[in-house]
């Protein structure tokens, strides 16, 4: 049944949809006007559906008798939730946006529940039926909603705890938590006497412990190594040191399996301390690699020697914009162990000047491969 109230809102939806489409076609599809009109249409539709659901909130249309016989259900706690939401929204406005969004969610959730609850209470004089109606209207939201909240709470608090403790104790806490959950499960399953009150106590204790630890951890922040890592950004290309010695972060755990073999223009080898290269399509070894300018080109480096090596590409020098200091330009691969490969993808925008030819070299090995960028 389409109720009169909902008709107005659906009408509004239709009108604003048409307006929005016209606006987009005639005026501008991308600006705020269209968004606003679509927003109007959406909210009209939402309110309309809500009105439909609650029959315009008017439960007493048909029979006075229902009103007379209506039995109030148990007192609702949804107003409290609603109020809590409002409080959170206000707090959020003053403090952090996360709290604000959380508050909005609680507000909407509480509001919807409250409305439906109220509506169902007046649906008939039969309490059982009213509960049935309420369940039909709301349980499709309640089940997944509560489940998602449960998942979110656990995942959030648990991750805060692990982020706060040291890297070594993370796994220990993890396994301990899992073991506790599992053991409690086994205990309850195997010992029937633990049911009832004990279970409740355990559950309450667990929730309090998790929430407490999580809140504490969230407030105390992440462990300082993580903060420092975020600050320093060890792995950024600007930290690369291309010498023969190992750098602390960049070369750490360097030997990586490479899977780029299908797309390399050339492969540079180090064998017995000497550098040589092979290029796709060339039958002989090459001492010059030509790559087009401004073109992303991958070069593979394969170390056949016992000691670790890295491939360095020298791309002349350039002025640093701010300071005016002339610096060498280039980049390099990680240190690579025996029979390991590394791939570098280069995009060189400028041809080399005569005085500063480009080249590939390997610190600690002899020979260089010329790099020509026509």
């Amino acid at each position, binding site marked *: 049944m389409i109720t009169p109230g909902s008709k107005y809102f659906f009408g509004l939806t239709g009108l604003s949809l048409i307006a929005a489409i016209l606006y987009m076609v005639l005026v501008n599809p991308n600006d705020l006007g269209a968004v606003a009109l679509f927003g109007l249409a959406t909210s009209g539709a939402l309110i309309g559906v809500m009105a439909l659901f609650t029959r315009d909130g008017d439960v007493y249309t048909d029979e006075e008798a229902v009103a007379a016989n209506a039995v109030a259900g148990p007192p609702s706690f949804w107003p409290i939730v609603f109020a809590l939401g409002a409080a959170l929204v206000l707090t959020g406005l003053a403090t952090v946006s996360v709290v604000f969004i959380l508050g909005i969610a609680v507000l909407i959730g509480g509001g919807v529940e409250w409305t439906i609850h109220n509506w169902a209470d007046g649906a008939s004089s039969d309490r059982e039926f009213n509960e049935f109606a309420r369940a039909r209207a709301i349980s499709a939201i309640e089940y997944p909603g509560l489940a998602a909240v449960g*998942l979110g709470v656990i995942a959030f608090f648990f991750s805060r705890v692990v982020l706060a403790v040291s890297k070594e104790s993370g796994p220990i806490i993890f396994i301990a938590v899992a073991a506790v959950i599992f053991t409690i499960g086994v205990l309850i399953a195997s010992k029937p006497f633990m049911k009832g009150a004990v279970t409740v106590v355990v559950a309450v204790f667990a929730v309090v412990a998790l929430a407490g630890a999580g809140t504490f951890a969230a407030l105390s922040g992440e462990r300082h190594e993580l903060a420092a890592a975020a600050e320093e950004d060890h792995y950024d290309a600007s930290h690369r040191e291309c010498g023969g010695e190992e750098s602390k*972060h960049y070369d750490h755990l360097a030997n990586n399996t490479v899977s780029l073999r299908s797309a390399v223009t050339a492969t540079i080898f180090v064998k017995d301390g000497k550098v040589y290269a092979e290029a796709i399509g060339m039958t002989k070894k090459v001492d010059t690699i030509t790559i087009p300018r401004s073109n992303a080109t991958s070069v593979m480096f394969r170390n056949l020697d016992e000691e670790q090596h890295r491939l360095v590409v020298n791309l002349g020098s350039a002025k640093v914009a701010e300071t005016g200091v002339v610096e060498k330009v280039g980049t390099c691969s990680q240190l690579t162990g025996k029979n390991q490969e590394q791939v570098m993808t280069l995009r060189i925008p400028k041809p080399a000047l005569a005085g500063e030819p480009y080249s590939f070299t390997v610190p600690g090995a002899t020979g260089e491969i010329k790099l020509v960028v026509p």
Partner: protein
Amino acid sequence: MADIATHDIDHATDNATDHATGHGHHSSTGLSNNKLAMWLFLGSECLLFGGLISTYMLYRGRVQNGPHPSQIYDIPFTSVSSFVLLMSSLTMVLAVSSAQRKDDTKTNLWLLITALLGATFIGGQVYEFTAFYREGLGFTTSLFGSSFYSLTGFHGVHVSIGVIMLLSLMGIIKKGKITGDKAEVVELIGLYWHFVDIVWIIIFTLVYLIPS
């Protein structure tokens, strides 16, 4: 992502068969429609995760910027989370077994335990993602970053949907609102859950252990 996964639920409980085929008429194979559908879905999911895993395998070493896989993987931690997920498969199968014995209390207990273990696994993944991000691996940093987060993120979404299904199933069982064969519904969600677990078995080996 969510849209792909939601129809799991649908298969699980859409049981029009008994009615549509008329009374007393068993299905041609003697098997349940829902279970057939679930297995087909899982067969299909093999190709979904296969594609994501292959993408990761192809791109794992392609790092222009930011960390390489073995530089940031925290194998002890991931080992624990793999172990937790594996054990949640045990608790899941216990739930199925209880449901087949029509023991609602125990079914619900094991469902809860499974969901809790799954939720801590997700917590672990939230931790891992946060830590990796702090160390310099963003979604857009490198091919490794994009393919790693896509693969494990997809898996994480599957686990999350699983947890939501488990927790709501508890509620639905408790309220007696289940619309089909209860044991079968638990079994179907169990199949989904185990599948998510075996995907992680593969991810754990191919993604985490092998590059080290």
